[in-house]
């Protein structure tokens, strides 16, 4: 388990999956930190990456853009990306950008791990 600071709350391994828990405000200011950690997770090529957004209060299009890029990376090596724990405010950003159907989104981390 790796403890991170700021927007990246935690990176941990669950079987063949890597769980990255984010927190706070994922905006243009914080996206570089998130991007760095998620790219590092992709380089290990786990079968599944779960991004837990339960503690994220705010997410903008730069955050969404990072998730799209990570999806492409995971897809390229044959892995799976699952998001979970989105509150209504965060989910609405996915809906506005019509990406709620693009990503696999689960309610809880347990559901994401078994999806």
């Amino acid at each position, binding site marked *: 388990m790796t403890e991170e600071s700021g927007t990246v709350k935690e990176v941990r391994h669950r079987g063949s999956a890597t769980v990255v828990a984010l927190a706070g405000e994922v*905006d243009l*200011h914080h996206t570089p930190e998130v991007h760095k950690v998620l790219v590092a997770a992709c380089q290990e090529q786990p079968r599944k990456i779960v991004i837990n957004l339960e503690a994220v209060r705010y997410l903008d299009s730069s955050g969404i853009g*990072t998730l799209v890029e990570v999806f492409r990376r995971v897809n390229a090596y044959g892995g799976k990306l699952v998001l979970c724990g989105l509150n209504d405010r965060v989910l609405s950003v996915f809906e*506005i*950008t019509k990406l709620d159907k693009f990503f696999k989104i689960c309610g809880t981390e347990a559901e994401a791990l078994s999806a």
Partner: protein
Amino acid sequence: MSAASPEPDFPQVVRVTSETANITIVRSAVLAAAKQIGFDESDVSAIALAIDEAVTNVIRHGYEGRAGQPIEVRLDCVQRDGVPALQVTICDCARQVDPTTISGRNLEDIRPGGLGTHIIRTVMDEVEYSMRQPMGMQLRVLKKLNASSVPVSRLPRPAAGQPSQGGTQTPCAKESS
């Protein structure tokens, strides 16, 4: 309005420089202004997101990431179609682009980036880009308060002889663009 949440005066002007950390300063001001006008929680969040995207675009595309450049955000409460509205005007001294070329991208093309303008146009009722003279760009956006969520205290005062719906007159300025 309680003493704990003083009523912001309109117009409000927020001046920041183009460091990404300053986005949260603008966001806080927009959240407070939208709440003050009476938008519900969902609209407050959406408006803050749209303005966040506008400022992000100025920093990322207008100033190309250069720090220390000026951004001014003016928040006005105006009347539009008989209801209060939040009007936000964002001015910069960044490179100029033809306003007619600014549009959201095709969402079927799934890729990082380019979503900000789509979000702004989806959330806000009016969106108007223009070039400033002698330099920079201006973006004026407006969001009307949904009639169903207009608090009684913010309903326009009825004309003389009509029954009152109670409350005080809106603090908003008269209809303007």
